[in-house]
C-alpha cells in the first residue's frame, strides 16, 4: 500500500542552520502535503505540492517533489527554536476518497 516514509527519523541541529527532511512514497499521487506537529498537539498544514509541480516556497520553507523518484524534501532555512516539532509528509492518491497517508515523521530539534 502507498506509504510516505520520512528520513531521517530524528534530526538535531543548531539554531540558524538549515534543516532538510526527506520523504519517499510508493504509488502515483495527486498531491503531497507537509504537516508539523508540536508534542501532543494537532497537525498544522505547512504546504501542499501537486504532482505537476516540482518546487514550492512558503516563507522559510521550500518543498521539492520528484515524481520520477517518488520523493519529496522539506527544507527549513535559518531554523529557530520554535521550529522544534515533528514533521510529517502525507500523500494523496489520484483515485478514491483522496485520504492522506502519513509517514512516520521526522522529529526535529533546534538547539539554541
Amino acid at each position, binding site marked *: 500500500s502507498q506509504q510516505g516514509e520520512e528520513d531521517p527519523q530524528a534530526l538535531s541541529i543548531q539554531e540558524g542552520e538549515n534543516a532538510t527532511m526527506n520523504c519517499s512514497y510508493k504509488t502515483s499521487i*495527486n*498531491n503531497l*502535503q507537509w*504537516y508539523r506537529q508540536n508534542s*501532543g*498537539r*494537532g*497537525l*498544522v*498544514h505547512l504546504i*501542499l505540492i*501537486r504532482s505537476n509541480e516540482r518546487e514550492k516556497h512558503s516563507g522559510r520553507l521550500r518543498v521539492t517533489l520528484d515524481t520520477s523518484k517518488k520523493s519529496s524534501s522539506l527544507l527549513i532555512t535559518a531554523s529557530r527554536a520554535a521550529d522544534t516539532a515533528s514533521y*510529517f509528509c*502525507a500523500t*494523496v492518491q489520484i483515485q*478514491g*476518497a*483522496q*485520504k*492522506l*497517508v*502519513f*509517514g*512516520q*515523521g521526522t522529529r526535529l530539534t533546534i538547539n539554541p
Partner: protein
Amino acid sequence: EPEVTQTPSHQVTQMGQEVILRCVPISNHLYFYWYRQILGQKVEFLVSFYNNEISEKSEIFDDQFSVERPDGSNFTLKIRSTKLEDSAMYFCASREDSGNTIYFGEGSWLTVV
C-alpha cells in the same frame, strides 16, 4: 481563519463504555475525515465521509466504530465498546474540494482504562 474544532480535548473512559467524539468541520467543506494517532506512532486513516455517507474506511474502522453527521455542522465518531487499545489521539479533518488542503483539528485525546 476558519478552523476545525473538536471536543472534548481529553476524555478518560472505562473499558467497554461508549464514547462519542465531536467535530465541527470548516463550514464550506464537503469532505470529512477521522484519523487516529497512538502515542509515539504515525497518524492512521480511519474513515472518510462525503455526501452523507462513508466513502472509504480502513481495516481499523470495524463494527465498533461509526460516524454520523447529525446536522449541518457536526461530524461525530462513536466507539461503541471501547478497548484499551483504542487509547489514542483522534483527529478530525476536512477539506473543501478535490485536491485541496486537508485541515486538521487539535485532536481529542482518548484514554481507556
